[in-house]
């Protein structure tokens, strides 16, 4: 009860904050960052369902997003935008039949056809559905494979799907490599993406904490054991794959609306790669982690622009010195936290020495022309992301959240997995001084106090 209220209050606050933000001046940058976090968040959380919860490496997510993007584009495109490329390459059939307006009016649902917002809901749902159908077709045969083999097959399927719109046979629909432009952008606004994001979070969290979610995680932990315990592997794998594809399609539709255009380069393999980075950063298997990871990656990409601006060269040297010195300090800190001896190793001293040397060079030669000339570091954002990823993999391999989820219980309690004093006394193991020296020590402390 308390937790539900807290959740509702948080959502309310988020809505209020978002409203104030849309009213504020000069907030367009932040708003588009948030929009992207929501869109990519949906995609990351859906990929997390397969890669994190089901424990299967799938590399074809961009394919499902692309299907969603194209379906949304085709269904939402106004007639005048669609005319040029449709008439050029025949397809009277497509023109006459692939028209959401016509379908809706035919079904007597004029009120939906008249409202572009409601039409978007229908289009996004159909986009998800199309992706889910393809998900079944791709998943059913390939999910028999495991590990690397499955990853390669899903990657192959993803690329096939991605390149399909270029084929002349379907170019009448997709406009070939030129792609589709002029998609109404309503669904790409921050409100749309926010509510879609909330819905997906709600849906997938519910799924995770249901019997089906447990079955997925059982398959991740031990496939043989899960099967021996009566879990139908094929069904559950295809189910998770399909649900994931559905939400990938929705994310693709939202992204196409955000960009107001879609072509085969919009959803290339780097999309999947980007999502993988995000969920590995946040913690595979954790929905909270997927969202956190996405936020980090998107924010670095959007607000990391200052890293790539032209600066005088000494800024670069100074930056290098700071990086070296902090690497030195960080390694010492980590070794201290892990109680490793010696705290400072010789090889780490090299970092410190380099940092000091760079600092000295900067100070001594600050007026030299090669120090004051302007330089620009292109691609530093990507390097920064890569470095963050490397550090996470070295020092916290399970990601920021690990497999844990955010929950109110984690903050306000009660934590059910930690024994209370009462339970501690009853538990044979915890109260036995031979087995648990800590308990004996504690009792001694109590006695002396």
């Amino acid at each position, binding site marked *: 009860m308390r937790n539900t209220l807290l959740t509702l209050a948080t959502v309310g606050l988020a809505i209020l904050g978002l409203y104030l933000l849309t009213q504020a001046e000069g907030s367009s940058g932040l708003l588009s960052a948030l929009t992207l976090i929501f869109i990519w968040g949906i995609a990351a959380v859906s990929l997390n369902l397969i890669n994190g919860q089901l424990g299967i490496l799938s590399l074809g997510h961009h394919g499902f997003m692309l299907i969603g993007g194209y379906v949304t584009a085709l269904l939402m495109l106004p007639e005048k935008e669609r005319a040029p490329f449709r008439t050029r390459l025949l397809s009277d059939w497509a023109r006459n039949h692939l028209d959401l307006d016509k379908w809706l009016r035919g079904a007597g649902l004029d009120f939906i056809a008249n409202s572009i917002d409601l039409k978007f809901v229908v289009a996004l749902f159909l986009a998800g559905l199309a992706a889910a159908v393809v998900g079944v077709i791709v998943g059913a045969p390939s999910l028999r494979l495991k590990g690397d083999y499955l990853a390669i097959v899903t990657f192959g399927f993803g690329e096939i799907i991605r390149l399909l719109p270029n084929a002349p046979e379907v170019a009448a629909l997709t406009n070939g490599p030129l792609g589709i432009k002029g998609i109404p952008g309503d669904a790409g606004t921050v409100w749309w993406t926010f509510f879609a994001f909330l819905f997906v979070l709600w*849906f997938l969290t*519910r*799924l995770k904490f*249901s*019997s*089906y979610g*447990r*079955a997925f*995680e*059982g398959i991740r*932990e*031990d496939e*043989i*054991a*899960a*099967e*021996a*315990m*009566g*879990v*139908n*592997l094929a069904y559950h794998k295809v*189910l998770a794959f399909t*649900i994931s594809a559905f939400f990938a399609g929705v994310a693709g539709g939202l992204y196409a609306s955000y960009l107001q255009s879609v072509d085969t380069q919009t959803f290339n393999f780097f999309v999947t790669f980007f999502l993988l980075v995000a969920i590995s950063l946040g913690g595979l298997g954790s929905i909270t982690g997927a969202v956190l990871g996405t936020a980090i990656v998107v924010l670095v990409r959007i607000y990391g622009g200052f890293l790539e601006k032209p600066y005088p060269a000494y800024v670069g040297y100074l930056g290098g010195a700071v990086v070296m010195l902090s690497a030195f300090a960080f390694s010492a800190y980590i070794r201290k936290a892990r109680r490793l001896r010696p705290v400072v190793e010789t090889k780490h001293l090299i970092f410190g020495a380099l940092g000091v040397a760079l600092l000295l060079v900067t100070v001594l030669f600050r007026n030299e022309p090669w120090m004051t000339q302007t330089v620009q570091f292109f691609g530093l954002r990507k390097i920064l992301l890569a470095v963050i990823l490397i550090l996470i993999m070295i020092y916290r391999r399970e990601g920021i959240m690990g*497999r844990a989820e955010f929950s109110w219980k984690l903050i306000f309690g009660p934590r*059910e*997995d*930690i*024994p*209370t004093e009462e*339970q501690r006394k*009853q*538990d*044979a*193991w915890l109260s036995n001084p031979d087995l648990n020296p800590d308990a004996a020590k504690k009792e001694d402390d109590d006695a002396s106090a």
Partner: protein
Amino acid sequence: MPLLELRNLYKAFGGLQAISNVSLTVNEGEIVSIIGPNGAGKSTLFNLITGVYQPDRGDIIFEGERINGLTPDKVTRKGIARTFQNLRLFTHLTVLENVLIPQHHRLKSGWLAAVLRTPAYLKEEEEMRKMALEKLSFFGPRLMSFRLHQPVYVLSYANRRRTEMARAMATGAKLLLLDEPSAGMNPKETKEITQIIRRFRDEGGYTIVLVEHKMNLVGEISDRVVVLDYGEKIAEGDYKDVVNDPKVIEAYLGRREE
């Protein structure tokens, strides 16, 4: 009618005849032990019964129904559950979740009903929880209260074995196949597990087939002992008769030079 009947089973891996012409009947309420030297085919026999391997020839009949050719999950649904020689728990999930997953196959609600938390689903979930606690309470308070919510990787080895047995029971099976239930346990824990296995039968109403190396455990609880050697059944009967059988002694100790 016997609960489980194996009729002339054969299984070969390449040139190795792992199981050859093994027949066995297990009646309801029995505790049957399968013993034999390493490599005798005990675990292969378990894998054949549970559908991990398919027999080359012969039939496996459970409650009058032929079950060979079924996949492991279907065999479990028929009512045969197993534990593994080298624990195969869902390590990162909690004890409770470990005992809930085997009940998933009985769930009638679809995934959408589960997401929407329909009353029917919530009722089923409640029943699953009740059953999980019932099975875990077989082992006394060890796995209850706060331990329910601890991940399996923090448990001691003996507690993991107990969790695995509770998990097998929670599938709703009638027949439990226990693969070395006392492996890695000290004498005191072994004694305790012996009593628990007997209670499975007496209180839980399970029929039990177990593979075991510790002879005192086997001698104490078995109604019947089956001895395998090189994939063949070389003896069957009372523990006392079996251990004095010259063929069994030969299989374990070798033939005396004349």
